[in-house]
């Protein structure tokens, strides 16, 4: 049985939890002979087992998100793709708009437009990746309990 505590970031897995055997571990049992103390004991075991099986996997996902360095690089890659996709889409839209106005760019105008477009795209790409990196790192740190440092006033 896979240990529910097995972290996703390469650390050696912890031993799997094995509840101690009991003659009757069903806390819902209304069979005769189960004392109140036995009932409470079984309820405690049942709650712990339920926590292990139901909720620990989600804690592991949170831990993985906070400690996986690829989360940051993936966020930066997605941000760059968003900017690239937006510029690709907008290029076609702008050409269509110019055609709708009956305008045609001369060679010089096209060159100037391409140059400014390239600069804008590069700046937006860098800004997007920096924003994605900073916000993802801050999010990871907040999960670990470290507040985002505030620089300046």
């Amino acid at each position, binding site marked *: 049985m896979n240990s529910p505590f097995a972290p996703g970031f390469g650390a050696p897995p912890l031993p799997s939890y094995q509840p101690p055997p009991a003659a009757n571990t069903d806390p819902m049992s209304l069979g005769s002979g189960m004392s109140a103390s036995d009932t409470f004991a079984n309820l405690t075991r049942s709650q712990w087992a339920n926590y292990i099986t139901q909720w620990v996997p989600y804690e592991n996902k949170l831990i993985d*998100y906070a400690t996986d360095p690829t989360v940051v690089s993936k966020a930066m890659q997605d941000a760059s793709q968003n900017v690239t996709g937006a*510029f690709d889409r907008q290029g076609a*839209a702008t050409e269509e708009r*110019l055609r709708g*106005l009956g305008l045609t760019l001369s060679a010089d105008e096209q060159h100037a437009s391409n140059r*400014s477009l390239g600069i804008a795209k590069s700046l937006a790409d860098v800004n*997007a990746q920096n924003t994605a990196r900073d916000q993802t790192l801050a999010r990871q740190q907040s999960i670990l309990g470290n507040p985002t440092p505030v620089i300046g006033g």
Partner: protein
Amino acid sequence: MSKGGGQVQETAQQRAFADVARARLQDFQVRWQPVLQNFAKGVLNANEAGSFQRKRAAGMVTTDNDVAYAKANEGLTDVAAQTGTLGSSRQKLAVTGMGADQAVSTGLGKVAAAQAGDNAYVSGLGAVTALGRGEKATAVSGMAQEAALSGQQAQADADASLQNAIGNTSLASRIIGTGFGLSTGGPGGGVPGTNDLPGVNGTNAMDQWLKLGKGGD
């Protein structure tokens, strides 16, 4: 526990407590745990790359920018017509420049939407783990916030782009009654759109973007 004859026997109250505890756990497992499990699955599903929530957020960014910049382009054309610069190089470069501005706004808007989705995912997971610890938690919906943010930012960027385009074509001094209510300050100033950002004008739109983009979750 009561004592008698060397034996410790359970009291009726202890047995009642045990019955109640058993019933409460059963009630939780029957009524509430399925709801919590569905909530957890919803959090995980919403975080998927092609999830409905992420697609909708990205789509709203694109739509909001299209709407805002369509109005800005109309304003640019009207200004060019009124000032007699239709078909000039300045108008052409203003159109292409506004296209670049729209691409920047859309791209960065999608990045903000993705980050808001990640915030919602982490908040949701945090709520789930808190529920698992028996603590009361609240889940923050990041998608709704980022949807409103994208509309406001799109309008602010469109306003800034139009002001820059007018400035580049040297048309500002020759504008006579455009009818679009172009202004440079005050709440609700700028090209009217679907989402007016109070207190934002064309000159400080970028500053607002930087503030909102970094803290808009």
